[in-house]
């Protein structure tokens, strides 16, 4: 199991309803069903991932998240709305966050932290857009069009009156460390948040 998914699994209460935005091949939902007995639905756009989800019995809806959740999902119809490593690829991450907290009682998001020292160093010393293990693509072909730092993200949450319920920052291998705990925006490669309203 992917280590970030393991962290998320441990945050999710048994028997809850989970909506996974950009669920990929359905790995998280599959584990959550097995270990937490959740009822889950994944949203995904990629054809191959759709087939993989269906094959492992994970319910999946093929839609483009940039179209929003609109009238497909009722308010507070899920306990958790999860989005792993997808926020930064959305056209309007801020609006999607609102949608997540409309449809879900809580939201769980993960994203690569642009504030990590290696990103800063590449900009400062080499003067080029960072290419790291967490962000391997070049600037022109990356899907990540809205990268942010942990600080940026928390400012957005504050402006939107979104409450931080839990935060973990980890390295690329999703290992927690003392340095990442003490200096998350500098030392954390990937940020994982559990959020609520008000």
């Amino acid at each position: 199991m992917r280590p970030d998914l393991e962290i998320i699994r441990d945050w999710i209460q048994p028997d809850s309803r989970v909506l996974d935005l950009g669920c990929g091949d359905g790995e998280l939902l599959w584990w959550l069903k097995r270990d937490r007995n959740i009822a889950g639905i994944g949203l995904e756009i990629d054809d191959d991932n759709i087939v993989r989800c269906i094959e492992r019995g994970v319910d999946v809806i093929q839609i483009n998240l940039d179209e929003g959740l609109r009238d497909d999902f009722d308010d507070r119809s899920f306990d958790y709305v999860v989005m792993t490593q997808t926020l930064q690829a959305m056209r309007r991450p801020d609006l999607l966050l609102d949608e997540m907290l409309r449809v879900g009682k809580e939201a769980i998001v993960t994203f690569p932290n642009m504030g990590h020292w290696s990103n800063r160093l590449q900009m400062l010393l080499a003067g080029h857009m960072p290419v790291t293990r967490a962000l391997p693509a070049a600037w022109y072909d990356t899907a990540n069009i809205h990268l942010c730092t942990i600080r940026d993200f928390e400012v957005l949450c504050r402006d939107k009156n979104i409450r931080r319920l839990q935060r973990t920052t980890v390295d690329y291998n999703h290992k927690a460390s003392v340095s990442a705990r003490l200096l998350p925006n500098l030392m954390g490669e990937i940020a994982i948040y559990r959020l609520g309203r008000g």
Partner: protein
Amino acid sequence: MPEKIPADSVGIVETRHQSFEQPLALDCGRELPGFTLAYETYGTLNEDRSNALLICHALSSDQHAAGYHSMDDAKPGWWDRCIGPGKPFDTDEFFVVCPNNLGGCKGSTGPNTANPETGELYASDFPIVTVRDWVRSQKLLAEALGITRWAAVIGGSLGGMQAMQWAIDYPDSLEHALLIAAAPKLSAQNIAFNEVARQAIVSDVDFNGGRYYDRSIPKEGLMLARMLGHITYLSDDAMREKFGRELKEGKLNFGFDIEFQVESYLRHQGESFVSRFDANTYLLMTKALDYFDPAADFGGDLAAAFARTRARFLVVSFTTDWRFPPARSREITRALMRAGKRVSYCTIKAHQGHDAFLMPVPQYLSVLGAYTNQILAGA
């Protein structure tokens, strides 16, 4: 005609008939004193009778869904691409049943069969049947075959509507429902097309109020109806790709005979349809489509209609289908989610329009195959 039967074919098959002596009450208020359903089966029913798939056919098809009736057949059954050994509806694993709907013209009780009360052909006296009536009759067929619970009920277009009705009317009699290129009800535009098709038939001088079996049939009318229908089955893209503005003789003739290839194609489709289909059946099938609206009994709330279903659902649509476009399948999916039901949904990229549900589109076959594998795995 096949010189030899392909390895992934169900091979030579035959239509069987199941007759029911008991009267069948219909939605229109009339009843059939008894009736017969023509059907075909492929594969073997397992010991605990848990591997049966019901295939529901669409507007102009019948019980011959796969394989060949003889070595002289030009083509296999209408859904041969999906039914057979190793195919998505794998006959090495599943027992596949496909009946001809009531009102059909291929051996089930319909306008071209005799009314036992008068000894004459039903013709235009055959009652208007609904999707719900079909499902009721299919349930009796299931019982006759010893199947209390389908592993899945599957259909495309009007067939998908039957699968939906199954899930609503007999929630405990199916594990899965596969709704392909379907809609929760027809739009005004859909009904309008059906009405033009019906008017083409009934205004044919040979229609004679539907009593034409012992004289010349309403060939022109049925042909026109099929030509019109066919346009709605194809996409603009598919027609452009297939025919463009290509001329049959390479030049304009400044007349009203066939000039463009697309005209020739449509006429050919119309003519071959007339030789295999009955005009009264066409009228009945289009009416069943028009009337289908499972939400109507629930104040128009489709989610409420789905509330009692217990099946898991797969909903599939095709990008260029403008007869039942993806938005209609999304309506079904949304209502199912709202009702808290388990559902997966995909939009298949295909250029063939509504007809894509019969085509070997790789992603489509992968999705169906993945779903049926998962049924077998009991996931």
